[in-house]
C-alpha cells in the first residue's frame, strides 16, 4: 500500500448563520488519499463540496481539524505550492492569452522567463491546446477554457490537483470528451486528484474511489472502491459493475435528498 499523500483529520468548517447561531457547512471529515490516487467526492449541491476544497487549499481556515500533506501539516496560504486548484468557472483572466494565463502561477518564482514559458507550453500541449497559446479566453469554447484552467493548475507541478466540478457547465457531449481527456492526462501525469462532482457516472468513470457526501451539514456518508480496470473508455459505462455501483450510489444520494426534505429543497 502506497503511503498517503493527503490526510484530512476531523476537518470541519462552520460559519455564523443568519440568526447568529453557528451554521455547520461540513464536519468530521476523515479521509486518507494515496499518492497518485483519483478520488471523487459526490453529493447533492449545497452540501459543502466547494467549501471543503477551499479549506484543503488553505483559502479559508478549517474550524477544527488538520490537513496533512506528505506528513506535513498545512496552515493558510503560506508554504510551498503543493496543490493546483481547477475552478468551477474557468477563472481565466480575460486580459491574458492562454499562454499568459498558464504562466500566472509560474511568474516570480525564480524561474527564468523562457524556462517558465516552455513549461507553460508543455502543459498547454498536454491538455490539447497546442496552437492556441496566443488566444484570449473569449476566443475559446467552454471546453477549451477548462483545458486552460487545467493546464494552469498542472503547470505549477503540484502534488495534488483539486478539481471543483470542472465540467459541470459544459454540454453533455463536450463533457464526455473532457472526461476522456482527463483520464488520459491523469494517466500521463500520475497526479493525485480530488475531484468534486454531483454527477455519479462521471465520478465512477474517472475514479479509483468515490466518496459520498451527506446533505447539510456535509459529511462522509460512505466510500466505494471502483472495481473497474484501467485504462477505461466510455464502454465501461455498460459494464455490469459500473451499472451496479451507479445504482447503489444513486439510492444513497436519493436517501440523502429525502432526509433533507425532498428535491425541492436542493
Amino acid at each position, binding site marked *: 500500500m502506497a503511503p498517503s499523500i493527503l490526510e484530512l483529520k476531523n476537518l470541519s468548517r462552520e460559519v455564523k448563520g443568519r440568526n447568529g447561531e453557528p451554521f455547520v457547512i461540513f464536519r468530521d471529515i476523515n479521509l486518507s488519499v494515496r499518492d497518485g490516487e483519483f478520488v471523487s467526492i459526490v453529493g447533492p449541491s449545497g452540501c459543502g463540496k466547494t467549501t471543503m476544497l*477551499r479549506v484543503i*487549499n*488553505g*483559502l479559508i481556515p478549517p474550524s477544527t481539524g488538520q490537513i496533512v500533506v506528505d506528513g506535513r501539516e498545512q496552515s493558510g*496560504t503560506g508554504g510551498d*505550492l503543493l*496543490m*493546483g*486548484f481547477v*475552478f468551477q*468557472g474557468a*477563472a481565466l*483572466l*480575460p*486580459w*491574458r492569452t492562454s499562454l499568459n494565463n498558464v504562466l*500566472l*502561477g509560474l*511568474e*516570480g518564482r525564480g524561474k527564468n522567463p523562457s524556462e517558465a514559458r516552455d513549461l507553460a507550453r508543455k502543459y498547454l500541449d498536454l491538455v490539447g491546446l497546442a496552437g492556441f497559446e496566443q488566444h*484570449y*479566453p*473569449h*476566443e475559446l469554447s467552454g471546453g477549451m477554457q477548462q483545458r486552460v484552467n487545467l493546464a494552469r493548475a498542472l503547470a*505549477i507541478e503540484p502534488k495534488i490537483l483539486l478539481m471543483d466540478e470542472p465540467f459541470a457547465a459544459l454540454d453533455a457531449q463536450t463533457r464526455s470528451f473532457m472526461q476522456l481527456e482527463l483520464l488520459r492526462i491523469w494517466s500521463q501525469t500520475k497526479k493525485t486528484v480530488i475531484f468534486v462532482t454531483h454527477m455519479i457516472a462521471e465520478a465512477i468513470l474517472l475514479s479509483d474511489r468515490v466518496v459520498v457526501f451527506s446533505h447539510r451539514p456535509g459529511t462522509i456518508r460512505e466510500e466505494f472502491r471502483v472495481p473497474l480496470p484501467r485504462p477505461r473508455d466510455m464502454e465501461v459505462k455498460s459494464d455490469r459493475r459500473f451499472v451496479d455501483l451507479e445504482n447503489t450510489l444513486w439510492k444513497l444520494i436519493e436517501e440523502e435528498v429525502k432526509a433533507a426534505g425532498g428535491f425541492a429543497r436542493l
Partner: protein
Amino acid sequence: MVKFYCGNSRAINKVLSILCGLVLWHYLATVIVADTAFLVSPLAVVSKAYEMLFLTGELYPHLFASSWVFLYGYLLSIVVGVPLGFLMAFSPAVRDYVHPWMTTLYTTPRIAFAPVLLLWLGIGAGSKVAIVFLGCVFPILINSYYGMRVVDREFVELARSLRLTRLALFRKILLPASLPFILSGLRLALGRGLTGVAIAEWFGATAGLGYLVYFAGQTLNVPVLFVGVTAFGLMGIIGFEILRKIEDLATPWKTSHPR
C-alpha cells in the same frame, strides 16, 4: 452585411452625420433665424476662427490658458482620485472617512463653489485648477473605488491559490481588472473638467476660452462666441479620442470585438 457595416462605412457615417449637422446649422442660421445678432452660419465661425488663428493669432493665448488649467486640474484628479479610490476599496476606515465628503461634494453644484474658491485662492491659476479638480476628481475616485470592489471574487481566490504575493495580486489581477472602470471614470471626468474650465474662467479671468465666450456674450460678438464654444467642443472630442487610443492600447483583449 455586419462586416460591411463595421468597415469604412462606419467612418463615412460619422462624417455624414457631422456634415448633416453643419448643413442644418447653416440653414437655421441663414434662412430661419437670419439674424447674425443671434446665430451665425458655421461658415462665419470658420472664417472667424481662421482669422483668430492665422491672421491676428489672438486665439492662442486663450487656447493655451484653458488647456493648461484643464490639464493641471485633470492630472491632479487622477493623481489624487485613483489612489484614494483604491484605498477606499481596501480599507473600510478610509471608506468611512471619505464617503460623506465624497457624496456631499459630488452632488453640490460646482458653480456654487467657484466664488468661494476665488475668495480663498484668489483669481490666479490656483482657484481655476481647484474648480476643474473638484469637477474631475469624483468620477475618477468613484470609478476607481468601484472597479476595485467588483473584481471577480474567483480571481482573488485564484491568486491566493497560486500563492501570489499581495503586490502581484494588485499588479496582475486587481489593477487590470479595474482598468476599464478607471478609464470610464476618466471619460466622465473629461466633460466635467471642461465645464469646470468654463466656470472658472467666467469668474475673474483675463484669458481662456471661458473668458472669451463670456466676454463675447457680453459684447454680443456672436462669431467669437461660437468660435469659443466650438473650441471647447473640439477639446472634448480630442480628449475622447486620446482616451479611446489609451483604452485600445491598455485593453488589447477587447480590440478584436467590434465596437
